[in-house]
């Protein structure tokens, strides 16, 4: 397993007007489970093909353990891949599929290795069968086994490998994959548009948007300290609330109310906060001012997600001028009408031109 480094990697398809990938820099540590999160068209697949060598690097370098592999052929890079749908040699048994990628290894070692990996993935019982007779999940497990079985693999790529799995199997499959990753110490890059999959699988996640990596961080950091509006929006369900605000006098203001302190140049900004960092309360109409960081809103409705101890918990939706605000909170007693929105001042983030203003007070 190798450490994977991208240095200023760019790619443009012949005849295309713009770069599909523009100046990527990324270090994936040895044995790390890394996820690439992005919507379709963000350049995920192109990056995968560059890593595996199926596309030639045009600009920038790819290093495996410090060695430049940009010009190395795919089969010499030691990269394996699991695809969206199970890709296996259909005329061979599962065991033969696994053995095929270890052609240059002595027979005995090879069969031991096949048995070991198959055991871990729970497909030992279907080793002698051909892929055609297996369920979709079994086939995908076999494809995963095929990617992991080869010794000396430097990098395992996973391209939305759970797309084909039924929802109730996804939890189990991801657990299996994750524990195997830890056990083998494999360097893995997992590509997906599903944030749950990315965040739950990976040690660190890179958010890819329009060919640029916006942020690479741990799941926690992505949630709490997104460096870009889009990361805030993309990560979390629902995504981050963003309000039009202004920075002046060392604080950020929305609708004439000061919400939090910030050291940044004066000017317009976006004020971001996650649904779980804010609360909406009912307001009796005659009360005007409540506190410095509280905004008057119109409660539009609630969506219960769960109930516990007689209380319903879920999302409250409110309107603030032109924008809509969603909070995640206790909903009991909340009705449509006038309300207060209070946001944890410690967690408020400000963005300008998309990027977060970092210098908090």
């Amino acid at each position, binding site marked *: 397993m190798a450490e994977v480094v991208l240095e200023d990697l760019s790619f443009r398809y012949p005849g295309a007007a713009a770069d599909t990938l523009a100046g990527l820099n990324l270090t994936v540590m040895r044995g790390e489970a890394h996820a690439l999160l992005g*919507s379709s068209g963000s350049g995920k697949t192109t990056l995968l093909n560059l890593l595996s060598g199926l596309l030639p690097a045009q600009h920038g370098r790819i290093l495996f353990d410090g060695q430049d592999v940009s010009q190395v052929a795919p089969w010499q890079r030691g990269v394996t891949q699991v695809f969206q749908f199970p890709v296996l040699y259909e005329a061979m048994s599962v065991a033969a599929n696994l053995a095929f990628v270890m052609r240059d290894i002595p027979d005995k070692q090879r069969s031991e290795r096949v048995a070991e990996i198959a055991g871990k993935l729970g497909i030992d019982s279907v080793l002698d069968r051909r892929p055609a007779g297996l369920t979709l999940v079994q086939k995908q497990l076999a494809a995963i086994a095929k990617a992991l079985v080869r010794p000396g693999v430097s990098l395992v790529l996973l391209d939305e490998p759970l797309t084909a799995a039924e929802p*109730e199997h996804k*939890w189990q499959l*991801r*657990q299996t994959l994750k524990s195997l990753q830890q056990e083998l110490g494999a360097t893995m890059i997992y590509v997906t548009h599903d*944030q749950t999959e990315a*965040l*739950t699988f990976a040690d660190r996640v890179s958010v890819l948007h329009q060919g640029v990596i916006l942020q690479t961080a741990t799941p926690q950091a992505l949630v709490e300290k997104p460096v870009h509006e889009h990361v805030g929006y993309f990560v979390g369900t629902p995504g981050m609330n963003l309000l039009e605000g202004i920075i002046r006098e060392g604080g950020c203001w929305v609708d004439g109310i000061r919400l939090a302190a910030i050291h940044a140049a004066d000017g317009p900004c976006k004020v971001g906060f996650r649904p779980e960092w804010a609360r909406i309360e009912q307001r009796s109409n005659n009360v005007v001012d409540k506190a410095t960081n509280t905004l008057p809103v119109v409660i539009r409705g609630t969506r219960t997600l769960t109930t516990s101890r007689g209380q319903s918990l*879920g999302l409250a939706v409110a309107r603030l001028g032109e924008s809509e605000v969603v909070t995640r909170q206790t909903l009991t007693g909340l009705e449509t009408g006038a309300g207060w929105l209070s946001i944890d001042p410690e967690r408020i983030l400000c963005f300008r031109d998309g990027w977060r203003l970092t210098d908090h007070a």
Partner: protein
Amino acid sequence: MLELNALVLKAGSPPFSHRFEAGQINVVLGRNHSGKTRLARVIAGLDAPESGEVLLGGKVVTGDPPGKRSVALVYQDFVNYPNWTVFENLASPQKAQRVSAALIRERVLEIAGQMQLTEFLDRYPDALSGGQQQRLAIGRALAKSADVLVMDEPLVNLDYKLREALQVELRGLLREFGVSVVYTTSDPRDAFALGDTLLLLADHRLLQAGPPLSLYESPGSPAAADLMSDPCANRWMVGGDLRLIRPEHLSLDPAHVDDVAFPVQVLGRETNGSETFVHCQADVAEANTQWVAKLSGLVDLAPGSREIFYASATAIMKFDAHAD
């Protein structure tokens, strides 16, 4: 409004009856192959049921062809007429009803506006993005002005974030049109997000029906409890009885003196940003599977550590051991 009377979806399945609520979003929740699509097709008239009746506005329509029923359908895979422009697609149902060109135009423009397709009216469907294609399909279904709109997992083939955005949009839109909706899905989140009422389907039969909240709080069977839970509910046995606790009802802090304590060993954790899923081995008598706890926010628990989860006694669901 739409009623099912002693309907049998598949040979050998028990018959069931159900009355869908008018002007509301009726979510049909079931796993893959539970008969959701079949039910949608039977309502639309594309398939004939094994036996039983479909009633629309009190009239039996079981044998009527789809075009004669006041039912529209949205498929999960963006079905549009590839050789017709967006405008022609939206005009299609009314054209079949021989509405005058001027009225059609008016209606198409109105729907295109609501579906945010106005600028694409001259394009062909394959020049649209996935989300737009599905919007077009929904728009065409709405253009039929049918009493019932059946949507068969309409968002399942979209990108995750797009799905989320369209879900919110859809709820407002369907409200606005005041149409009665039958919406099938396998995702319990859709049930809460969209559903006014809920119908749980398993194995081509009706498990339970009612408002989402009441089904969530008092499921009639372990299968019904699992359907409303993602991941599935945690199980253990007490004596001869089966007990279930939902992952989201486990917490690290006791809130009440009567809370039940569950000592566990943490196996691993996952998070999606807003919630943390803790996989653990529960030390409960006769617990035979791994458990999952769903905690809000980001919670850091090291694998291998021992923790105690608490749950309100009222949250524990009790069933006969052979209830499944």
